[in-house]
């Protein structure tokens, strides 16, 4: 199932890159207006105006989108492979899971832009003082860890959707309450569902042999 989803994901990467780059650019503009983020195929390109210290030139950095989004096909495969009580639950789980992972992808692009900024800053510090900065190296390892954790993220998201009851007809707690009501309903009284009919001729039908 995972292998079947890989080509679909690969085809969807370009629009995903465009969306993530546009959203990240909008978000990052509030933090630092000298940074611009644009999509170039499946790569999010970050352009930094390094400023006066670097001689007024632009620096570029690229993020291959597949490295921060390859958990998506696994999530899709896990959701599709899960047997739900109804099809709508599966669609809802897939939509919620993919929306969450898209949001995280946008944040990853913002993080990469920040990393590119820190690397430029470290280079400037090294050029002026001769001291090697460690801020960007630390953030690089954090980012590396995030990228490598994509399958873990997909599995946790899938477990989250399952435990939030997306695959059930209704959440487990509600189902227990409803079962209790069915058991205590008198057969000839009006049905709890509001149909106006007797319980034994309405919802009670399904509980009788």
């Amino acid at each position, binding site marked *: 199932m995972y292998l079947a989803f890989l080509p679909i994901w690969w085809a969807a990467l370009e629009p995903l890159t465009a969306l993530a780059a546009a959203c990240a650019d909008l978000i990052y503009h509030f933090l630092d207006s000298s940074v611009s983020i644009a999509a170039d195929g499946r790569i999010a390109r970050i352009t930094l105006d390094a400023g006066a210290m670097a001689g007024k030139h632009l620096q570029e950095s690229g993020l291959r989108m597949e490295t921060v989004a390859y958990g998506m096909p696994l999530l899709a495969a896990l959701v599709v492979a899960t047997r739900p009580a109804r099809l709508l639950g599966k669609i809802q789980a897939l939509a*919620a899971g993919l929306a969450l992972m898209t949001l995280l992808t946008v944040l990853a692009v913002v993080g990469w832009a920040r990393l590119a900024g820190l690397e430029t800053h470290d280079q400037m510090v090294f050029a002026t003082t001769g001291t090697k900065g460690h801020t960007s190296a630390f953030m690089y390892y954090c980012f590396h860890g995030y990228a490598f*954790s994509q399958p873990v993220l997909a599995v946790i998201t899938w477990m*989250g959707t399952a435990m939030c009851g997306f695959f059930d007809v209704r959440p487990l707690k*509600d189902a227990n309450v409803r079962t209790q009501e069915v058991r205590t309903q008198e057969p000839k009284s009006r049905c709890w569902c509001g149909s106006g009919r007797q319980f034994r001729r309405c919802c009670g039908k399904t509980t009788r042999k």
Partner: protein
Amino acid sequence: MASALSGRIRAVNRGAVRYIVLFGLIFVVAYFLVGVAPGVRTGILKPYTGLLARAVTFIVNLFGSGAVATGTLVQSSRFSMDVAMGCDGVEACCFFLAGVLAFPTAWRAKAIGLALGIPLIQVINLGRLVGLFYAGTYLPSLEEELHVYVAQTVVILFSTAVLVYWLERFAVKHRPA
């Protein structure tokens, strides 16, 4: 949509939500301490990747590959690979550790899970590295894709299977009433 989602979350078992949240938090903390913070990463994991490279070399040489391990490099006449950071199975181990520690069960069951599960995941990871060596040797054009998108995912899926087995076989049995 948002209210429906929050209603759905409120309606489900709080224990399940607590498990998922704890799972995520323990994973992030464990991965940060082991895989990101410099102490363990450079002090333990770097020498460990060298050990993994030697183990891969030993296994592939059993089948006559004629490979040599130099530090973290595994080299043969047809292919060479570097067992770098991220090839050590730390993500999968942190994932399993988080899944075991977050589940409300007896400490004995958790200890059994960790003692059996983490070495098993490391064996699976070693299998992945051996598989990647052969992929690089016989399918060099696909090696990068197999490395990044398939092998890593397969290890996590196997780790999930180990976790689910532990949950069913040990954790639920020793769960407090």
